[in-house]
Structures are given as C-alpha cells and as structure tokens.
C-alpha cells in the first residue's frame, strides 16, 4: 500500500513488560511506529493498551508498585536507560488524555503556555508566539484568539480537548500519545479532532488508543491489536480491516466477542 510518510522508525518498543504489583499487565510487546504516521492501538477493555501507552512516556512508573522491563527506543535511544530523567522523556513524548483536563484556575493562554512557563521559559514574546502556533495546530486559534485570558474550563468539551492538544504541542514533542482522546466527546467534536490528526501527522508522529474501530480505520496508518496484555497483530490499517492474519483479530474486529 502506498504511504506518504517516510519509513524511518521513530519509536520502538522491544520486549516491553509492565506490572501492576503482581499483575503482569503487558507481556513482551514488540511495537514500532514510523515517523509522521498515526498508529492506532485497539483491543477490548483491560487488554493492556492503556498501560502500554503509558510505558511509552514513562508515566506508568508514577503509579506506586509498578515495574517495567524492556526497552523503548526514541530515535534509537532507550528512554529507560538508567540515569535518564523521566521528566525529560515526557517533554519529547507528549500525552493527551481521555477526559479533557485543562489546568484549573488558569486562563487559556496560561494553559497552553504551562509546559514552557513552568519549565522556566518566561520570555513573553516567545510564549505568545508558541501559544498562537500551538492553538493553530490544534485548530482552536480562531475560536479563542479573542479570549485568551478567560479560564480554560469555560470552553466546551471539544474545545477543551483541543486546548489540551495545543498544550501538549506547545513543547514541540516529536511524538504525541493519545489515550482515547475522543471517547468523552460528541460526534462533531470527534470528527474535528480526527481531521486534526490527519493534518498533525505531517509534523509529528501519533500513537492513539481507541475503542472505536471505525475511528482507527479512519485516521490511522497502522493498527495494533492488543489482547490480554499481548500484542497480537500489528499491520497496515487497510490490511488489518480487510484481511487480518490472526483469527483473534478477526473475531474482535467483526464483533464476535468483546
């Protein structure tokens, strides 16, 4: 199948295992994402895809009692190397969550600028520039440019989520992770964000967890099917949805279970 993206692998997971205490949540995952692609992770509830994606930006280890083994390579470098600060990893691998979560008591401007401001970058002109660029990237600029000082929580659900996307983009991460970003939104907001992803991937690489197979089919270049902590199949999206190799993938996609 033809693909407009380059074939350079920007993110790679090698034999990734993660535990919640005694529970072996993800088992031996081998995953990769090429630059400027959208990669969807699908699978039934509890199959480990949310855990896996949180291992990609070292967020999983913030939960007490968790353990991780294996490697995650960003541009060839393992982010789990001893001595690497997880905080710096997360500046390169951003994340947008299921429930829109603008920072409370902060204006739209402050929300988008938070990643820079709180990291110590205070130059006003730079912040203004970055905020506008990020809001444009998130297709929100036109709607909020006249009310940058109003609280982030005043926006509608769909707008809040785009605000969170702008906030994540403001620190210019090469990879953006999204954990069911449109599950809590109405169909129109969902459609807007899906259109957004197709534009965004020209500049960054996206990994998106979704419960909605139609969404995975619409927006992603490759799809990975997870089941009970394992990565069952990773394939080009059209291939996955017209002719999956594994029976379990087939059963899940056609709705025969889960």
């Amino acid at each position, binding site marked *: 199948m033809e693909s407009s993206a380059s074939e350079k692998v920007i993110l790679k997971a090698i034999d990734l295992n993660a535990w919640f205490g005694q529970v072996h949540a993800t088992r031996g995952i081998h995953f990769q994402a090429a630059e400027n692609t959208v990669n969807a992770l699908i699978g039934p509830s509890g199959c480990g895809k949310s855990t896996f994606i949180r291992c990609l930006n070292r967020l999983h280890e913030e939960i007490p009692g968790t353990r991780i083994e294996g490697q995650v390579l960003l541009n060839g470098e393992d982010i789990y190397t001893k001595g690497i600060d997880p905080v710096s990893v997360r500046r390169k691998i951003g994340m947008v969550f299921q429930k829109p979560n603008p920072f409370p008591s902060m204006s739209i401007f402050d929300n988008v600028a938070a990643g820079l401001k709180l990291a110590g970058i205070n130059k006003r002109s730079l912040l203004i520039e970055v905020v506008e660029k990020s809001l444009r990237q998130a297709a929100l600029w036109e709607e909020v440019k006249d009310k940058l000082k109003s609280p982030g929580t005043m926006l509608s659900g769909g707008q809040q989520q785009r605000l969170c996307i702008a906030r994540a983009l403001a620190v210019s991460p090469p990879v953006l992770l999204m954990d069911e970003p449109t599950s809590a939104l109405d169909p129109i907001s969902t459609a807007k964000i899906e259109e957004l992803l197709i534009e965004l991937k020209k500049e960054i690489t996206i990994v998106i967890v979704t419960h909605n*197979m*139609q969404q995975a*089919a619409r927006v992603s270049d490759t799809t990975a099917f997870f089941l009970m902590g394992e990565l069952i199949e990773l394939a080009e999206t059209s291939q996955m*949805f*017209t*002719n*999956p*190799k594994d*029976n379990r*993938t*087939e059963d899940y*996609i*056609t*709705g*025969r279970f889960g």
Partner: protein
Amino acid sequence: MERYFEIELRNLKQQILAMGGNVERAIELAVSALLDRKVERFEEVHQLERKINEAHMQVDEACLKLLARQSPLATDLRFVFAIIKINGDLERMGDQAVNIAMNGKKYLSEPPLKPLIDIPRMAKETESMVRQALDALVTRNIQLAEDVLDRDDTVDAFKNQIFRELITYMIADPRTIERALELILIARNLERIGDHATNIAEDVIFAITGKDIRHGLRKSPLSGVPHANI
C-alpha cells in the same frame, strides 16, 4: 445469540441461492425448449429472467444498506463485497439465458440442422458450475471454488468443438449458415455463462481467503492459505 449481521448475511445468501436456482432453471429450460422444439417454453425463460432482474435490484439495495448500517470489517466486509459482484454475474447469466432463448426461437423457426448433443452437455456443465460456485459461497469451501475454475476448461473445449463442427456444416452447405450461426451464438452464450461462474468462484475465494486471484494471478493451489472459519 446470533449477531444481527450474521442473520442479514444469511438472508443475502438465501437470495443469491434463489437467484442461482432461477439461473440454472432458465438455462435448463432454454436448452430443453431447443431440444424438444417447444417454442412456448422460451416465454418461461423470459419470466425467469424478469425474476432474476428483480432479485438483482433487491440484493444490491440490501447490500448497500448493510454496508451503510453495519460497517462490516474483515471477512464480513469481503463477503458483502463478493455478494455484490456475484449478484452482477448472476444477472448477466440471466441475460445470457434470454439470449439463448431468442437464438433458439430463431433456430426453431426452421427445420433442425443436426441432432443436438454437445450443446445440452455444455449446458449441463455450466448449470453444474453455477450450482457448485454458489455452494462454495454458502459452505465457505475453497476446494469447490477451485474446482469450478478447472471446469471452465471443459466448457471452453465444448465451445471450440461446437464451433469447429458447425463451421464444417456452413462450409459444406451455405443454406445451413443461418441455423448454424444461431447454434454458434447459443454455444457462445453458454461459454459466457461458464465464465461468469468462474468469476463467482474467484469472488468466493477472495471472500474466504482475502486473496485476489483474478486475471491469471493464481499460481499455486490455495489449500494452504489460512482462511476464516465458521
């Protein structure tokens, strides 16, 4: 509990099978009318073809609705896709049967040219191919479908034989040309029906395995290819 989609798919298959039955019957009728020299039977062929056309439209509509509402994926998607195409092939077969009837009517307006042996055999072969291709669809059996592809050679051989024989007739006696031509056209129509049956078989193989083997891309036996179960 059976999925709603499975029920819908089963209905579609029933409709296709019914169409196939009508196609078989139409071929049989047309050829038997020819053999028994009963012109009135050709009218029945026309009636059957009308039923086939009606079903053609219903199946297309049903498939479109199914795609819009169910958004089927993987095997489900391939099956609906295949059924749409098989639907088209069956409708064309109906048209061919009517063509046979029209050619046959012209043939019967004159005294018989020769005993008809190959044409009925060819007709039986193609009827059987249609039935087998549709069986393959319903039972999801690749072997049956592959076998249909092989049998097309037999049909082609019949056609060539009939052509050669009738050409000798035409060369020997120009007064036989009109009748011979009608028989040649009938043979041609039967050969086309055979081709449509192989199209159906190819679509069935695609539906089951996901492999597109049309236009001579079938290189090796397909029994080793993993395919969907159930």
